[in-house]
């Protein structure tokens, strides 16, 4: 009779444990303590930042959060225009090799300390220091001695960055870098508070420890769920900040994100589920924001191996046989623009070069493609057989199957669609041993054509096709030496023309940013960078308690 009582006892213990755990896990955060009536902005992150250490972080999502927390010498307006950030002014030397920044007198850290030029020197040295192992260390490549420091051949203190006084910072370059100002908006160039860094070491980027020089401070980070930011009252432009609390929710599933938006748990989504796009457009109207962005989706040829090595005409045939209009309308269908250039339209001071056949109709393109295909020695009886590799995902698969069908229909070419996990595809693209045609994409790091064109230089590690053309490299080299922005642009455009004529890549479409934004969110502006600083947003009068 004694043991029959065991089950109720076990159940009761488990119930007690569960209740206790619930109490513990709710007590751990101070989220509830934010006074009612404070404006709270709930926005979504599609994946979780791997780090909020400005120099160590890497992902777009980490940068999105860090742009709320910190501020570079230069920053962006809500519309995506460059404006002074923590520096209120700067001078560029005539030879373009030296930039002198003046730090704002009223720039302060979240603990009240002034932000100094030395803080920026510390941050930039930390970025190139091999011990930091920073992903963005190469972005500073044009700064004096940066390359040698990254390679471990020189001490980080030798970096061409100097604080000549408390508020003056001089950056010295080895070659003109017209996009330097946009680089200096990136979180990897944010300043580091030396005292805090020395006190906390590797943990200085934790909630409660990370000092901020931007509009918000990191209040709480629950990995896998949420990052909560509170207003930084010491920020120099705090008077312009409207929202007190910002919650970045980690939502990996597009459908779950959409449901949370509909349940009024999110004001802003990071994307829109592909399945219901038309329905969402009809139903949500003005709440749906679709805007061009700095990203190209492309198919690349492995130009180091047969059948595509030394065969630009065959590559051109495959490129021309793809009906991009059908792809973006019937397959991707979320407002993407068909791509006929490598550099996306709308980029600063640049006019993308179009593929030579961009002006032809698809019927005309198909006819030329067929004759090129025949010229390369293939035909209906002797079809070209090759593998098309893409990473496992619904969208990739639908595009791959559509393109496969177009190639078969127009040319009779037999592409075998092979899907592999993303990390596997990366490995295979870089080794160039098994890849023939592969899918990839590129997103610009800053608003300048260089971020797209530089990756196709022979020695670039992101050059997945293995493309190498001395003429292209020489044009890029010349562009890098130009001080005159118009002449530089001409060199870059010529380089793009060469790249497109070689058909090492097939640009398919340009990405768009897609957000749902609640009507009460004010100050939202679509921009090509897809940067949306929380400090530029405010919540309308109807919205004062976090849950609309």
């Amino acid at each position, binding site marked *: *009779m004694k043991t029959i009582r065991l089950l109720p006892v076990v159940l009761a213990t*488990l119930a007690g444990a569960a209740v206790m755990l619930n109490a513990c896990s709710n007590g751990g955060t101070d989220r509830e303590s934010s006074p009612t009536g404070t404006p709270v902005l709930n926005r979504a992150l599609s994946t979780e930042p791997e780090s909020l250490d400005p120099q160590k972080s890497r992902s777009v999502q980490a940068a999105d959060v860090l742009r709320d927390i910190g501020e570079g010498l230069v920053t962006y307006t809500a519309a995506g225009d460059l404006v002074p950030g923590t520096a209120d002014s700067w001078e560029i030397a005539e030879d373009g090799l030296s930039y002198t920044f003046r730090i704002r007198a009223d720039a302060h850290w979240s603990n009240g300390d002034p932000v100094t030029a030395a803080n920026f020197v510390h941050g930039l040295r930390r970025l190139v220091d091999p011990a930091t192992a920073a992903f963005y260390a190469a972005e500073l490549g044009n700064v004096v001695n940066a390359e040698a420091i990254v390679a*471990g051949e020189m001490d980080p203190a030798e970096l061409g960055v100097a604080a000549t006084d408390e508020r003056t910072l001089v950056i010295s370059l080895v070659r003109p870098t017209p996009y330097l100002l946009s680089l200096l908006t990136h979180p990897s160039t944010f300043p580091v508070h030396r005292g805090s860094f020395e006190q906390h070491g590797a943990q200085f980027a934790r909630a409660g420890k990370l000092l901020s020089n931007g509009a918000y401070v990191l209040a709480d980070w629950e*990995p896998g769920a949420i990052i909560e930011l509170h207003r930084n009252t010491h920020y120099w432009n705090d008077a312009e900040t409207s929202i007190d609390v910002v919650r970045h929710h980690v939502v990996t599933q597009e459908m779950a994100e959409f449901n949370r938006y509909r349940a009024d748990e999110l004001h802003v989504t990071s994307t829109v589920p592909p399945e219901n796009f038309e329905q969402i457009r009809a139903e949500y109207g003005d709440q749906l924001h679709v805007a061009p962005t700095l990203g190209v989706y492309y198919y690349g040829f492995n130009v180091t191996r047969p059948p595509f090595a030394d065969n630009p005409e065959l590559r051109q045939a495959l490129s021309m046989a793809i009906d991009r209009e059908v792809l973006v309308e019937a397959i991707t269908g979320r407002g993407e623009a068909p791509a006929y250039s490598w550099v996306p339209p709308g980029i600063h001071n640049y006019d993308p070069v179009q593929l030579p056949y961009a002006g032809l109709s698809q019927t005309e393109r198909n006819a030329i493609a067929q004759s090129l295909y025949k010229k390369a020695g293939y035909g209906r009886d002797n079809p070209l057989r090759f593998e098309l590799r893409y990473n496992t995902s619904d969208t990739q698969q639908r595009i791959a199957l559509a393109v496969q069908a177009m190639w078969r229909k127009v040319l009779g070419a037999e592409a075998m669609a092979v899907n592999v996990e993303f990390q596997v595809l990366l490995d295979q693209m870089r080794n160039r041993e098994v890849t023939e045609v592969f899918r990839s994409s590129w997103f610009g790091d800053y608003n300048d054509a260089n971020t797209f064109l530089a990756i196709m230089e022979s020695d670039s590690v*992101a050059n997945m096709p293995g493309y190498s053309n001395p003429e292209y490299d020489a044009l890029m080299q010349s562009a890098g030496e130009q001080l005159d922005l118009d002449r530089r642009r001409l060199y870059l455009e010529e380089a793009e023309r060469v790249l497109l004529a070689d058909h090492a890549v097939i640009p398919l479409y340009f990405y768009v940013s897609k957000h749902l934004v609640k009507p009460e969110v004010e100050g939202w502006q679509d921009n090509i960078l897809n940067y949306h600083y929380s400090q530029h947003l405010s919540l309308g009068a109807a919205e004062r308690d976090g849950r609309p």
Partner: protein
Amino acid sequence: MLRYTLRRLLGAIPTLFLVIVLAFLLVHAAPGGPFDDERALPPEIEANIAAAYHLDEPLPVQFLRYLGGVVQGDFGPSYSYRDYTVSELIGRSFPVSVQLGILAMLLAAVSGVSLGVVAALNRNSPLDRIVMGFAMTGISIPVFVIAPVLVLFLAVKLQWLPASWTGSEGASRLLLPVVSLALPQIAYVARLTRASLIDVLSSDFIRTARAQGLGTAAIVRYHALKPAMLPVLSYMGPAVAAVLTGSVVVEEIFGIPGLGQLFVRGSLNRDYTLVLGVVIFYATLIVLLNLVVDLLYGAIDPRIRRR
């Protein structure tokens, strides 16, 4: 009993070692590395990162370094959460998974057993059919269908409950995930209980009890339920382990910071230390829970204890 427990625990050490070796080899054999990305890195930067995480050392050295850490309870730094250690991440997410898992299993045990008993006692009646029909549906509909449907009606349309973990601070955020996790388990437990109880009710000692004039309620309560619980209990052991270590699907749908989500993120990003840490933790948990179930067997059925 104490000696038995100790012997079982010591016997688990070689098992765990084997798990560590296999898991270590498998994660390193997977193509791609933890820091690969479409934005490929210049070789010198890649070398700096590899050196910072000791990925440039030969595999045996890496293994010994890792094993040395594990013995001291240090699972190393996470690669995909660079500001956290693996121990910290497991320490943060396990309580969340436990909380959900325990509540889901409680719900499953209580309602599953009750439904099973009702069905068994009303065998072949319409009530039995309704209960078993519900059970079949529960087993057949996958959780990735149930959960979004629950969200759609209760969170989006009616707005009674939060659609996600971070949508509310209170206990209400537990409700939908717990129900989604429990539904298939309720169904399973109900079917097991019914089958097992029907079996027991037709055995000789129950007939004897009836002959002595005991009523159905007393028979079920004092004689039939205990032996009928054995199959249910052996099912609950691994089921608890599976639920405690997190349901990937439920965690993704509701955005719950549990172990399952951590594991998936770790594997997709080739976060070697995170994957290994969760695997070792999971293996240890299964070993412990199996031991607990065996001890509970003994408590419920003295015949097993004596052997």
